[in-house]
């Protein structure tokens, strides 16, 4: 088998030689990507071969190739070369041209590495070809294959070849790709998928994760050994394996046990104890992620956090679990995919589909979710990054459980703005916004973790005015477990009301609804992960003696996608506008987008009504 595999390597190298190259409209494109996963003697051999065509100078970013790996699975037999437009090899990569550095990641430290090299030519189009091997002795996943390098870069032809002994059982999950061709020979099963991507998917406002629209094949062994033996038969069996990895880690050092119990002395209410211990965690630890060793699925023990007072999501969750256990409270290590847009879990494909760990604490009639990496989240707050999705509760009877969605009242933004309008057209504004949901999370994070100056910069960008002087601002948090905060700002607008011959006019503040693409260019469906709920009170004090000539009409708009109410009151020289906007959460198929956009346009028209005064 190893011999066959070597031979294949040679044939691919030969097959790489082309004779005619024609540039397309893209700056660069993946002409061919062939990946092989071979299971031989319970080891996984990966071979990846890539041909990238560079069509012009702007496409040259891809002449810098970065190959990431972990040192337990080194990259071997790396070969790379350039072919000109006639298919001739212009230059081959020399080993001294390869630099090995630590991989760039968002982690504090990870022992992942990157092999970097760059190959350039001066006549377009030309092709960068490279191929390499990797060997895995231990693995819990064969591969998660998606032959898309960048959304704006097409992949003309991609092939995945997966060979394994008939006795090696796997689960396969695939999407946006045709069925594989399968044949067996001498007890070896060979599966082959073909895919392509035409480079036409782009991120759009509130679209589902773009992964949904790309070809993908995930292959998981049913039986595997990774640290300890595991089975991907059911969520229970997968959870059992994860459970073995965390077994015995949730023990506090003796010295800390007593100190922590002291914190909750004489407190009997279980929820109150959880709350106090969560505060203890927030005040005594911080988020520092260090990944050493393969996969990063085995957490550091509670004692590690005890010693350093920091850890990643896994370590901090284990530590919190230990704090609760010490107080006699059960909790569950819980795997989840944290993201602003919830990603569906493939329920009939038990496997590692998660990127984050939290803690579930069952209390009478209610389950509390604890995010242990945040030093500022309110107690038991399920953020927009966690809400409304399936999570896997780990114990010996692991199961998927739904984290409930945030309700409209939990994401509400209440804003009050008072304008003092002057006869020269300028205005002073007092703005008070009570924010919850996503904006609460942002400001809450800034308030705790950013310098005053960074907060100031953010607020200057956030305030929805074109030209203003910010005189004063304040972020007010009423208590550490409050799920909302208040943003207070005092500012002056240099130009507000515009003079039209002998009268003034101005527009009132439009609702802060995200700016969606017009229907003519929208390509992807909409997925609103939680409601958008805006309640505004706008008070305009016009100059003394002003006579109101025209004011907006009160109105209310309804559709399948949401509601909008506008009420306008006039009293002397003051106009008061009350406005509610509610956009319902959920998915809107792209065929229906034109109706959704039409609803938003009607809101815009209502919001654009003018106020005229003399």
């Amino acid at each position, binding site marked *: 088998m190893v011999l066959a595999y070597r031979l294949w390597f040679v044939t691919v190298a030969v097959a790489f030689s082309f004779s005619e190259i024609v540039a397309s409209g893209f700056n660069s494109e993946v002409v061919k990507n062939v990946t092989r996963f071979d299971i031989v003697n319970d080891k996984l051999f990966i071979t990846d071969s890539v041909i990238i065509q560079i069509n012009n100078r702007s496409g040259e970013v891809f002449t810098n190739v970065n190959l990431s790996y972990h040192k337990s699975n080194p990259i071997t037999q790396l070969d790379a070369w350039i072919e000109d437009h006639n298919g001739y090899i212009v*230059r081959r990569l020399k080993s001294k041209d390869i630099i090995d*550095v630590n991989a760039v990641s968002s982690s504090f430290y990870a022992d992942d590495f990157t092999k970097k090299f760059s190959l*350039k030519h001066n006549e377009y189009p030309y092709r960068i070809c490279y191929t390499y091997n990797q060997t895995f002795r231990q693995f819990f996943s064969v591969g998660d294959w998606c032959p898309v390098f960048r959304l704006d870069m097409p992949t003309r032809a991609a092939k995945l070849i997966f060979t394994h002994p008939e006795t090696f059982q796997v689960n396969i999950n695939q999407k946006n790709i045709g069925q594989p061709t399968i044949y067996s020979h001498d007890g070896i099963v060979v599966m082959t998928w073909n895919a392509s991507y035409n480079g036409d998917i*782009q991120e759009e406002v509130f679209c589902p994760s773009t992964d949904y629209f790309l070809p993908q094949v995930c292959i998981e062994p049913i039986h595997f050994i990774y640290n300890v033996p595991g089975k991907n038969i059911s969520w229970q069996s997968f959870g059992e394996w994860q459970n073995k990895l965390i077994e015995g880690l949730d023990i506090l050092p003796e010295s800390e046990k007593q100190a922590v119990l002291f914190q909750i002395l004489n407190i009997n209410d279980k929820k109150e104890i959880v709350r106090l211990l969560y505060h203890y965690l927030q005040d005594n630890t911080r988020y520092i992620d260090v990944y050493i060793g393969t996969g990063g699925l085995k957490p550091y023990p509670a004692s590690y956090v005890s*010693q350093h007072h920091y850890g990643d999501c896994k370590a901090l969750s284990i530590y919190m679990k230990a704090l609760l256990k010490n107080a006699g409270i059960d909790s569950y290590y819980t795997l989840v995919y944290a993201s602003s847009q919830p990603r569906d879990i493939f329920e009939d494909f038990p496997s590692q589909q998660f990127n984050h760990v939290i803690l579930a604490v069952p209390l009478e009639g209610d389950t509390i979710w604890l995010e242990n990496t945040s030093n500022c989240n309110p107690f038991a707050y399920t953020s927009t990054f966690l809400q409304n999705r399936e999570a896997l509760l780990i114990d010996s009877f692991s199961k998927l459980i739904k984290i409930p969605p945030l309700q409209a009242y939990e994401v509400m933004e209440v804003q009050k703005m008072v304008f003092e309008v002057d006869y020269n057209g300028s205005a002073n504004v007092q703005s008070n916004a009570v924010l919850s949901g996503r904006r609460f999370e942002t400001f809450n994070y800034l308030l705790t*973790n950013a*310098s005053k100056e960074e907060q100031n910069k953010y607020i200057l960008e956030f305030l929805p005015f074109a030209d203003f002087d910010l005189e004063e601002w304040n972020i007010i948090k009423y208590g550490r477990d409050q799920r909302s905060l208040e943003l207070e700002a005092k500012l002056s607008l240099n130009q507000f009301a515009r003079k039209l011959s002998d009268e003034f006019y101005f527009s009132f503040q439009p609702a802060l609804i995200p700016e969606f693409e017009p229907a003519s260019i929208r390509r992807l469906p909409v997925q609103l992960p939680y409601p958008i709920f805006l309640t505004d009170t706008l008070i305009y004090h016009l100059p003394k003696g002003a006579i109101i000539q025209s004011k907006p009409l009160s109105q209310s708009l309804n559709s399948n996608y949401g509601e909008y109410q506008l009420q306008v009151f006039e009293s002397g020289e003051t106009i008061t506008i009350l406005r509610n906007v509610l956009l319902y959460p959920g998915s809107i198929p792209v065929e229906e987008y034109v109706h959704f956009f039409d609803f938003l346009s009607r809101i815009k028209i209502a919001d654009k009504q003018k106020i005229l005064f003399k």
Partner: protein
Amino acid sequence: MNSIKVILSVWFEVLLAVSVSAQTKIEEFGMVTEEQLSMKSYNLDDQAEAVVISDIGSTSFYDMNNEFRMLFTRTTRIKILAKAGMAFASVEIPFYTENNELEKVFDIEGFTYNLDQEGVKRTKLQNNAIYEERISENLFIKKFAMPDVKEGSVIEFKYKVMSPFFFNLHDWEFQSEIPAIYSEYTVKMIPFYEYSYILQGAKKFDVFKNTHSSFTRNFNGIEYPDNVFTFGMNNIPAFRDEEYITSRNDYLMKLDFQLAVIHHSNGANIDVISTWPLLINELLKHSDFGLYMKGVERNAEEILAGLPLESKSPDEKARILTAYVKSNFNWNGSKSKFCSQSVKDFIKKKTGNSADINLFLCALLKSSGVQCYPLLLSTRDHGKVVIDYPFQQFLNYVIVTAIIDNTSVLIDATESLSPFGLLPARCINEKGLVVNKDKVEWLSLKDDAPSEEIDSIYIEVNTTGDSALIKVNMQTTGHRALDYRRFYLTDKDDFGKRFLNKDMVYADPISVINPTNIENPFMVTYEAITPVEIIGNKLLVLPFAGLTFEENPLKVGFRNYPVDMIYPLTKTFYCIIEIPKGYKFAEQNKNIAVDNALVRFSFSTEMLSDKVCVKGDYSFKKAVYLPGEYYTLKSHFSEIVEIFNYKIVLVKL
């Protein structure tokens, strides 16, 4: 810039009178005071999220088997005042390798102190929590996160770096993103290396001491004491970064050291640098500079064969050769004044750093009979050049100056999209040094190339009056064209979005003329639908929709550092609005014109039978505005935002 220069040498007493103020008392490593632990805020800066209590560094020389090594030690103590300050409890120590020699970081130690019920709690930084990373070919870092850090903690760490690189005596930054109570640097000089230093961001030291060590050392029979210099600063404010500045490097309060002379024990002295002419001579003899160019010249005939240079003027030759180098060789993004490879490798690999490319071009120009010189400069991110101090470290990049018809033309062949004679923005940083063995000459890097944008707009209001079709033709030159070309060629989709205001859509997709034809203006045309406001019997039409500032980009109220716009820009608008049937233009013609030292702008409207003509232009006259000019500039921006978003009113008849 405030800078002073002192030559440090054991053989001469230093001629510098500095008030020696009381030095702040520094706690011993491993000890903390109650006062530091119970401190709740820093009285000189109540916004500080953390404050450096003390930052103490020193460099000394060690004789290791008859070879000197520099030992840098640093001890830093920081008070964490708020959770936001905990970022300063993660520490990174960079160290370098070059030519198989490596710096070594060792003896890292650290403690975190907290106050709890039982009193002071001290937590030690564990050795197994210190990590090492390789960032690039030459750069490594050691990193660690201090343990047990919370609001109120005092952290303290120290480390040593052993270095063989005498050219880089460790510089000292007194200032950082958080304020410091006391920062001090000591250098213990030996007779064999003589350094100069420059202090930036302050006029004098708060603490300055010069003593000799009480013991003497012996090297090759020469007996000497260490000559010890101590530089200290009290109450250093936080450096708070601002938008539109060249580089943090230009403003930070710091002390830079430069090797000046090497005194060999046999009595010979090597001036590392003393004058610009010496530096120029040395470069011309350097294998990765002058000799590289000679190498190109030797191969020039072969390279130039096939290029149509015969009977061409110097100007034509320079253009042909620049175009040849730009289209055949690629910049790898690395800035350097020294070549990174042999001429042969460069020709084979077709890619290289700024010196590989520009010295190659310079040599080709010379070989073809064009008078030209390399020109050294400091790129914007590298900081300003100090002409008074002849240190090659101040210059990090090389371009070409060609003398054509008695005028210097500056050429940087790394930027394939810039037209002949236009420098990319990274090079525009005060002055550059001509590498000419006959004279020292500095050329201004400011270019006079006009960076202009002219927008011609034609607007037709539709029959219902609620929207308008606008047809735009945009023409750009200079840096503006270069910026647009780069943008367009890397991301066509994003480029398209740039010209649409809220609620605008394209009626006819954007089309670009001369995307890569760099010697001609970069032009864009498109048609779009834009909303028109209806108020009673009036239509309000925005003449320059999507083409001008919608918001004032200067938002903060106060500024410490200059606003650097890189290049002066002029924008001109011509707009014709067709008056729809049944409407008239009822306003008085508007005519606004402002012209002063900082900006010029004008705006005018004029009725022409069934059309309204709107003309406008604005021009930022300076590339750099001083902090004192900030407020005026900000209010001019405010006027420009107002005037150029002025809506033309059409009234129903």
